[in-house]
């Protein structure tokens, strides 16, 4: 049965049929009919953010912490352009987001009408797909299709641009089951012959390693369970990218820690020296590979990925397997078991002995201090004091983000939300709001740098209005620390514009919003201060004054291979040659 209704009503109806519970948005002229419909119902909650960029990051946090798509509603023109950074962020990190934008009426498109922008044109390169709906009869089907595209295959952001006359006009509503999904059907089952060849390689390998990424988390809970079973059964070591943290528990004894530019020594050397690399849902990012010509030179490489364009993009692999992680791991485990669960025990024992040697380097060691709070120490204490909580962590971008990845431990997926591919300062605070909306009783902490945090600090208003007790844990070094570190290493210590001046008094700032502010500068007070933050029932800004000139190590300078890593205490003067300096 088809129901007739206005386009605006259709939007709400379609969102409800898609199981949407929360929409992050900001109103304006071109979406008023939809806001009017939102006003007249109680099933879908609307969270009024203070800036449209924050709406998208909040939706990303919601999506990453639940596995469900995040939904955003913004107006035309400036509302849509403000969403662009968030869309690009979600595209880079494969986060499913559905963004609805208002548009000027169809008969005014192209006339430079008030608040008109070519939204589908602007967002074409930063969405997985986008639509301009010119006919109310097509609206509901387009919304259902948008959810399908956003959440299947390699997930990503989609956008639907809805002119105001289409919202006012009546049309017939199509429910999700009757909607035409088109030909878009990504392949999920891997090629059995290729999987069998991978099993053969696993049986022989003397120095194997699992290199896992965000794709395992994208694939879902079945994938993380199967991964866990596979790692335990084979005894192979496992490392992960920044995006994949939590897919395998950090407390597991096969865990080597994160790899890459600021990854652990043992993880990077194991990647460099392995003879079989099994990439599961990671994309050979340049933060991982370093100098391509020297990337893991002696290994056979297998790559399981759902996106054909990820395979052989920068690194040529020997065993490409196109498919969904959960589906492929299920077949892989079945075949490996049916062939007698073989691994090369002698080889593995020697391999682990070598890895244990590398671990002894203790690459995360830092010079402790009883006078100033070292950022690493702050995170160690945060880890110790929160690990038994139902805890979710978001981050901003910079040194604090890398230290958080190194010093906080994740034993479950979807607990770690960070901007990896785009590296968007200003991501973490709104993301923490999105996470808290999905997990009302959980402890949600945004590990921030003061500079990043200021980029979306207006969201204090949102946190207060909706009683979201998000904790803003700011490692305040009064520096754009990551930039300062690169200037120290690459630009002769000329610290051009890399310090934070005229900072607000964060405690007063919190109080101005009606929230709680805590400041701490003495390591002796830190535990009590963190406990105070945890125990406060409401939003907290925690201004943690840390050592100003700490560098984040280990570090593989851009353009260097994995086995040329800078460790703490290294001579950092001109550590990166001219060749590395042109890279980012």
């Amino acid at each position: 049965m088809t129901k007739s209704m206005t386009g605006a009503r259709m939007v709400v109806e379609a969102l409800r049929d898609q199981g949407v519970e929360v929409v992050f948005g900001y109103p304006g002229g071109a979406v008023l009919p939809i806001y009017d419909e939102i006003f007249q119902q109680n099933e879908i909650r609307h969270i009024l953010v203070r800036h449209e960029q924050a709406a998208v990051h909040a939706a990303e946090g919601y999506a990453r912490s639940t596995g469900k798509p995040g939904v955003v509603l913004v107006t035309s023109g400036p509302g849509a352009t403000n969403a662009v950074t968030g869309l690009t962020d979600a595209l880079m990190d494969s986060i499913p987001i559905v963004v609805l934008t208002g548009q000027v009426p169809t008969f005014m498109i192209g006339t430079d009408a008030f608040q008109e922008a070519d939204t589908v044109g602007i967002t074409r390169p930063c969405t997985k797909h986008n639509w301009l709906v010119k006919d109310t009869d097509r609206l509901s089907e387009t919304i259902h299709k948008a959810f399908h595209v956003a959440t299947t295959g390699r997930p990503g952001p989609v956008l639907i641009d809805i002119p105001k006359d289409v919202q006012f006009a009546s049309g017939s509503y199509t429910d999700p089951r009757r909607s035409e999904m088109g030909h878009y059907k990504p392949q999920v089952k891997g090629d059995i012959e290729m999987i069998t060849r991978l099993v053969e390689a696993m049986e022989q390998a003397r120095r194997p390693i699992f290199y896992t990424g965000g794709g395992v988390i994208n694939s879902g809970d079945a994938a993380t369970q199967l991964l866990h079973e596979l790692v335990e059964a084979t005894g192979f070591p496992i490392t992960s990218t920044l995006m994949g943290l939590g897919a395998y528990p950090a407390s597991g004894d096969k865990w080597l820690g994160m790899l890459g530019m600021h990854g652990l020594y043992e993880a990077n050397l194991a990647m460099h020296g392995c003879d079989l690399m099994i990439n599961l849902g990671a994309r050979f990012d340049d933060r991982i590979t370093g100098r391509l010509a020297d990337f893991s030179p002696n290994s056979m490489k297998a790559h399981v990925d759902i996106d054909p364009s990820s395979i052989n993009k920068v690194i040529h692999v020997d065993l490409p397997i196109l498919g969904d992680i959960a589906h492929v791991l299920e077949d892989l485990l079945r075949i490996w078991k049916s062939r007698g669960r073989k691994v090369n025990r002698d080889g593995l024992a020697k391999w682990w002995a070598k890895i244990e040697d590398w671990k002894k380097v203790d690459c995360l060691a830092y010079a402790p201090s009883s006078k100033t709070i070292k950022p690493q120490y702050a995170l160690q204490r945060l880890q110790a004091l929160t690990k038994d909580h139902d805890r979710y962590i978001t981050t901003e971008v910079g040194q604090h983000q890398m230290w958080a990845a190194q010093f906080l431990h994740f034993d479950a997926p979807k607990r770690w939300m960070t901007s990896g591919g785009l590296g968007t300062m200003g991501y973490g605070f709104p993301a923490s709001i999105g996470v808290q909306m999905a997990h009302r009783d959980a402890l949600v902490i945004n590990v921030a740098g003061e500079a990043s945090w200021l980029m979306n600090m207006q969201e204090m208003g949102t946190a207060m209005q909706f009683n979201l007790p998000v904790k803003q844990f700011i490692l305040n070094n009064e520096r754009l620390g990551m930039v300062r570190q690169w200037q120290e290493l690459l630009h002769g210590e000329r610290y051009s514009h890399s310090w934070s001046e005229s900072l607000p008094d964060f405690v007063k700032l919190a109080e101005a919003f009606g929230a709680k502010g805590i400041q701490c500068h003495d390591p002796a007070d830190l535990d009590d201060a963190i406990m105070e933050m945890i125990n406060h029932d409401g939003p907290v800004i925690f201004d943690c004054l840390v050592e100003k000139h700490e560098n984040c190590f280990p570090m593989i300078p851009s353009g260097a291979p994995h086995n040329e890593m800078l460790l703490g205490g290294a001579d950092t003067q001109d550590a990166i040659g001219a060749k590395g300096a042109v890279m980012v």
Partner: protein
Amino acid sequence: MSALRLKKGLSKHSAYDLRDPNAEVIESHTLAVIVDNEAGVLARVIGLFSGRGYNIESLTVAEVDHLGHLSRITIVTKGTPQVIEQIKAQLGRIVPVHEVHDLTVEGPSVERELALFKVAGQGDKRIEALRLAEIFRANVVDSTLESFVFEMTGMPQKIDAFADLMRPLGLIEVARTGVAALARGT
């Protein structure tokens, strides 16, 4: 060499590796891309090429299936084998793209392009132009006392060659359609 005595992975060129990108062989490939004929689809394809720095040597597009609303885009592009593979994978991931065929590797194919040439001249030059047009099997589709418009269909190289010959004979304008291509046989 891998301890497994299996073929090891080769690390290939990328933007982060400051090697001369021209050091690798550049190949020309003709791709046929079947897409939904919907608003913006051509912009998606072209945007992909400009955004990722791929080359477009020639591009043609027209609806080929009215009932199915499908268009065929024929693209001639150049790049290293790895870049060509990326281009195909990236095209394949655009939502309204149904199929991507690499006619250069999928077997023999025919390629044709149509061109119009306006040649102005008098006396011997005019006679010579007409004579060459006959040899190239170009048709005269317009003529005045001072000019001809020739129409020619053929491989792009043939059209290039004809243009080179016409230039000294008074070529003033050329319009080309770009390449249309189909696989041979069934």
